[in-house]
């Protein structure tokens, strides 16, 4: 027993001593030799079919899409095309869904509720509040998602997206980030929550965190409608009708480009302050091109997105709808809760060039950016008491005629400054609750979730404030 113990002690002592003698690079050397031997064995045993033809085709495509002259123009053109198809293509199904869910099904539900003697309060809460908010999110969000994501996946399947990361990497490198952040940013234009999940392709933790925190600056599908509507009504109205379409489109593109610039600026700031450091690892695989599996891609990405949107609508939009309806219909001292809140928020809103209505809409619309505009309209009617428009307190609606809309908003005290600041604030504010939840799931950290949620909000308040004050200083 004791001899055994002694023997063991001796071996351990010897091992301890040898450990120092084998030197520093021992582990690395051993690992490298193992890999090298494995590679040699594989090279000897594996024969590869000759695939020179495909290889040459790949090389030709690569030369073209990464060329100094054509690389960037092709990239911009391709993404412009994707967005154009998404926005124009979504109009038809969006209108179809909204006519079924909102124009037809909603009155039927209300009628059914009345016929079985449901109290006005309950039917208002259920159908005007919860149902309508859910219907809104589905009809605004589902069609663009169902178009954007399959297109995006097709590009990915084909092998083009890694080349985009490759082309843009130097710019991301200069802001201390990873080239693959280009991919999660593009994904963010569809949906920020999806963009945050897409950062999984970035393997170094620091760069991944940067990509997660800055993803919110990619203008998502839920915010495009707000931008387009406000740009058309206010910015387009500044120029002759012939140019209105072009100018308002440029305004929206300008906001999206501002978002991209902010992504770089925020990445740079993060990597020079709280996330200091160099890129720990970088390697980017450029897979061979292959014909995309069109139908499979469309099918899976449609099913995935549909389920996702439905889940999101139920989990987040349903309670939001209830709260919006209740705030407009529950009164304290003869005045609804919503109006109390609006009066309370108004001084702050005015200070940053917005108003109480918009701020309240952004608070109740944290679950889904899609319902910002309907909520703003509903609250404006509530406050101004314009009875010719709207469908009653707490009922969200949209207006088809731009002139009517403009008149209503003017009655609500809107100016050109309000419109510009709303567009800015829509770009720079906290991410929606789905995204916040996703960030928490991906980072597993309350601290980084708070940074990702609150810092864009703070930045948005600062930007709108400065714009408002400078505007008033020079423009009156």
């Amino acid at each position: 027993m004791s001899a055994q113990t002694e023997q063991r002690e001796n071996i351990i002592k010897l091992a301890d001593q040898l450990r120092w003698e084998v030197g520093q690079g021992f582990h690395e050397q051993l690992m490298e030799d193992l890999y090298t031997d494995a590679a040699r064995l594989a090279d000897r045993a594996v024969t590869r079919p000759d695939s020179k033809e495909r290889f040459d085709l790949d090389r030709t495509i690569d030369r073209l899409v990464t060329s100094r002259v054509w690389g960037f123009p092709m990239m911009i053109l391709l993404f412009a095309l994707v967005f154009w198809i998404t926005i124009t293509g979504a109009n038809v199904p969006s209108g179809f869904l909204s006519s079924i869910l909102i124009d037809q099904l909603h009155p039927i539900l209300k009628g059914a509720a009345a016929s079985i003697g449901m109290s006005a309060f309950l039917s208002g809460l259920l159908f005007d509040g919860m149902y309508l908010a859910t219907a809104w999110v589905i009809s605004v969000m589902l069609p663009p998602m169902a178009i954007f994501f399959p297109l995006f996946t097709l590009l990915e399947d084909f092998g083009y997206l890694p080349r985009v990361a490759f082309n843009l990497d130097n710019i991301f490198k200069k802001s201390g980030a990873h080239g693959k952040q280009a991919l999660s940013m593009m994904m963010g234009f569809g949906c920020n929550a999806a963009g945050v999940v897409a950062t999984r392709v970035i393997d170094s933790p620091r760069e991944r965190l940067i990509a997660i925190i800055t993803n919110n600056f990619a203008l998502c599908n839920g915010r495009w409608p707000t931008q387009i509507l406000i740009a058309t009504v206010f910015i387009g109205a500044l120029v002759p009708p012939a140019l209105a379409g072009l100018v308002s489109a440029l305004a929206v593109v300008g906001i999206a480009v501002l978002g991209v610039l902010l992504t770089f600026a925020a990445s740079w700031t993060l990597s020079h302050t709280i996330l200091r450091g160099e890129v720990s690892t970088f390697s980017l695989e450029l897979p061979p091109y292959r014909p995309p599996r069109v139908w499979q891609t469309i099918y899976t990405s449609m099913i995935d997105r549909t389920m996702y949107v439905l889940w999101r609508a139920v989990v987040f939009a349903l309670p939001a709808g209830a709260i919006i309806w209740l705030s407009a219909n529950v009164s304290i001292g003869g005045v609804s809760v919503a109006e109390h809140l609006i009066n309370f928020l108004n001084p702050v809103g005015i200070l940053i060039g917005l108003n109480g209505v918009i701020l309240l809409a952004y608070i109740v619309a944290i679950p889904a950016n899609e319902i910002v505009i309907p909520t703003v309209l509903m609250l404006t009617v509530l406050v101004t008491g314009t009875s010719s428009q709207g469908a009653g307190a707490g009922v969200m609606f949209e207006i088809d005629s731009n002139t009517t809309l403009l008149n209503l908003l003017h009655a609500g005290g809107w100016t050109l400054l309000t419109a510009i600041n709303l567009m800015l604030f829509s770009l720079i504010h906290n991410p929606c609750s789905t995204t916040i939840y996703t960030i928490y799931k991906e980072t597993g950290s309350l601290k980084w979730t708070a940074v990702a949620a609150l810092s864009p909000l703070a930045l948005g308040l600062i930007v709108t404030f400065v714009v408002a004050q400078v505007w008033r200083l020079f423009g009156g």
Partner: protein
Amino acid sequence: MPDPVVALTAFIVVLVLLIALFAPERGLVWRWREMGRLNERVYIEDTLKHIYKCQMNGRSPTIESIAGAVDINADQAAHLIAVMTERELVVMTDDHLKLTPGGVNAALHVIRAHRLWERFLADETGLEESGWHRLADRYEHGRSPEELGELERQLGYPTHDPHGDPIPSSSGQFVPHGGQPLPSMPINVPLRIVHLEDEPDVIYAQIVAEGLAPGQQIRIISQTPQAIRFWADGDEHVLAPVVAGNISVVVEQAAEKPQPVARLSDLKQGESAVVSGIAPACRGAERRRFLDLGILSGTRVNAEFLSPSGDPMAYRIRETLIALRREQADLIYIRREEAAS
């Protein structure tokens, strides 16, 4: 509605105030927390480290040298010595300050913590080399032996920190690196770097800027009182002797003559070569990633095309296209093959 001028002025005032409060390293909050961190325990641990280093180098620590090393005044240092004597960490014999056996153990514990943290920062984070020492100086304090054991296990029981200093084992054992200062070595003899001194910062920054790392093979070309010229992995370097004195080397036993080495980043578009190795400066996750990609000695690489933004370059490695940034390609050594097509 407030006057825009008033509002903007108030905003700027608030902004300046916030920056003064929260700016990292200079803001009030940061300084205040820093002061809270620097308690007696930290001072004692820093003093132990200082006395231990003095003893290793055969110097005698004084009140003044302690005050300088720990960044306190002489009165505070004298008080600190009194406290440490009381706790039987140091003794005064023949007017010399010495560590007691307990003091040596305590000092080795702090040194172990420091070097393990440096190893961690080098292998597992992307932080800049010049920042490791300062951060390790913060993390080394107040660590229990269990914590360090866990860290050591996580890092795979490393023997040396990234500068080449041995990491004492949990029982306090270690073997010194045994290197000699570079200027004391004969010219034209194959040498290997075993240690880079990381203090003072200014000199270390120069060594880092040259891209030197422990494990590199070097050979002195010429030496004058003003400058020392040497080859390191195929590049020629010139350093002042005072800087070179902080580089420790040993004579390389397996004396194959170090020859000029080309790097993957030297490869122009369309050229190809064979990998001959990975630089010693490349460690941790990055090294593992290279191995995973099959970047091994003997692997053929071909520079295929360059990003339109100027960086990275796409290389064909084992029938796969891999894009590497210039910094990464710098770490891979290659051998050009004239005859190979």
